């Protein structure tokens, strides 16, 4: 009887397994195989096995793109953490009515395509744009600043795009927080700061870490932000892969880059699980 029930459940999961196999495992395997093949003269690949694509990644110029991607991801994630953590933390302390309203305000921008919202930043940053007009109107500057197509513009775009993920994961952690524990710590003589560091931070750490993962990993791949707001001048792994695939016709090299990127991100997630002791992404799964 029990066995029959188990079978039924397994059967119901079958479509999910099939979906995963066809749309996730299949392409991954395809990518790995492709990364070991040789490119053909002008188009496509030959079935010759080679390690050349992986060796090519060791060229300083390509290693540098990985470094650039990490640098941008780290800068963005730190800023997201600094803004997102207090935001999520204080949001959890709001009354139910205001929690809902804040949530709404955070969600509404998602109804618009992220690309269109990025174009909004162009209007703000461009020469004689909103920001320039404001600064000049206030008499702070007297000539248009050239803010668009600079590194800070890219960072602002990244922080803007990924901040909600940090806020939501910190919020979901902080909301579950048992505030009486902090009161107890205070009663036992801990200072505000000590109570925060030893109790609050520790209990919200899973949320913070999952926020870090949720902003760090996509920021490795969100190359269109660097393209649009940075004028294509910051070469990230994502844009390198796209370039190799679409413009240079070097599919195997693109695949090799993608494999390495996948491995790096997997390592990040493994590290996160080890650090936080949480098996899933808090608040998301």
């Amino acid at each position, binding site marked *: 009887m029990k066995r029959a029930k*188990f*079978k039924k459940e*397994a059967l119901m999961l079958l479509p999910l*397994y099939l979906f995963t*196999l*066809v749309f996730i*495992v*299949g392409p991954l*395997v*395809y990518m790995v*195989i*492709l990364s070991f*093949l040789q*490119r*053909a*003269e*002008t*188009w*496509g*690949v*030959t*079935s010759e096995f080679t390690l050349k694509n992986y060796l*090519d990644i060791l*060229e300083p*110029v*390509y290693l*540098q*793109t990985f470094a*650039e991607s990490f640098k941008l991801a780290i800068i963005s994630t730190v800023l997201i953490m600094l803004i997102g953590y207090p935001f999520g933390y204080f949001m959890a302390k709001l009354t139910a009515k205001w929690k809902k309203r804040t949530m709404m305000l955070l969600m509404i921008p998602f109804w618009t395509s992220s690309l269109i919202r990025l174009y909004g930043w162009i209007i703000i940053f*461009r*020469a*004689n744009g909103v920001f320039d007009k404001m600064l000049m109107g206030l008499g702070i500057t007297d000539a*248009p600043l*050239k803010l*668009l*197509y600079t*590194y800070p513009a890219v960072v602002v775009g990244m922080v803007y795009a990924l901040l909600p993920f940090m806020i939501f994961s910190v919020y979901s952690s902080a909301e579950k927080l048992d505030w009486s524990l902090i009161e107890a710590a205070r009663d036992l003589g801990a200072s505000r700061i000590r109570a925060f560091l030893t109790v609050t931070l520790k209990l919200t750490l899973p949320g913070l870490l999952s926020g870090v993962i949720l902003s760090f990993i996509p920021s490795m791949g969100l190359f269109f932000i660097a*393209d649009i707001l*940075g*004028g*294509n*001048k*910051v*070469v990230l792994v994502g844009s*390198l892969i796209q*370039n*190799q*695939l*679409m*413009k*240079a*016709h*070097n599919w195997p090299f693109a695949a090799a880059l993608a494999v390495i990127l996948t491995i790096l991100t997997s390592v990040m997630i493994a590290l996160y699980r080890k650090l936080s002791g949480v098996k899933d992404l808090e608040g998301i799964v």
Partner: protein
Amino acid sequence: MRKVLASILALALLVASLAACGNGETGSTTDPSGAADNTSASADETSTGDAEGSTELVLYTWESMFPQEVLDAFEADTGIRVNYVNFDTDETMLAKLEAAEGGDYDLVIADDYIIETAIAEGLVTELDKTQLPSIGNVNPIYQGQFFDPEDKYTVPYGAGVQTIVYDPNAVDIEITGYADLWDPSLASNIGITSNFRVMNGMALKVMGESYNTEDVAVIEEAGKKMLELAPNIRLIKDDNIQDDLISGEIGAAVMYTSQVTMAMLANPELKVVYPTEGIGFGIMGMFIPSNAPHSDAAYKFIEYILDPETAAQCFEYLGYYCTNSAAEAYINEEYKSFLTLPEDFTGDTEMIQNISAEAEEAHTKIWTEFQAATGN
């Protein structure tokens, strides 16, 4: 249950790897004789199969290649419904056409170099010129080029040259050629497109080399030259780079012909420069895929577009050089200077062609180095 799943997984891996290998093999087929057989057979098939005439045309090209009025008029005149499918890059087009084995699409318009590859892959039908009585309207300057030396497969539809456009009010020097872009007074003031063969080509041209050199040492030399250009680059962008020139974000830009047309219409004070080092040239061509389901409709469409008045209407909309000499008389004076080659045009042009994989890899490498240098 575990075992079952494990075996399904193993099976899936096997299937996936087989599929990958299969793909790899078709990707590398470049046997021209086999390709030719394939095309002639399919041409016979379509000509016998479409005795009554098709009622649909699947047109596969970039967005906004034809004014809507022309498409509507074609539908009204012939009763053939145009199904306009667009791609974003030539490479996407070729990948899809390859997956469809030259079927699904009836008429494709794409860039010269990718057409050369498509012909080599056997994906293009040899044109039956008897179905195109107006083929003589095509300007012979644009015919007999590397991608189709005998004009067997393609009819040109628009051509572009790489030009420098600058705003004399925002630039201190007079720009006459690519070499001027290296001038220190242009620091952080230039916009370029991301077509790396064209952009690295500027350095090659300044060095007096060919766009299509396959000498890796020369390409690397050009890479060093490009690094010196990096401080002057403010922006690398393909779409609507003319907007940044018009808004004053940049003072000079290297751009495509259609963008030049739009920039000049918006601000007639801008200056167009045909670089003294020589001019890079590109042609877009129409071709019928080898297994096009409605090739008869494709012929009717090409013939329709070859009509001088219709062509003039198309090129005014498109903003690329008019490849139809009979149409030039119908082009509005306002556009004429942008859509026809200048009278003092020396003809010192070179088309960018496919080069060896080794040379292309050298190009992508120096481009990535250059791009990284622009960010610092």
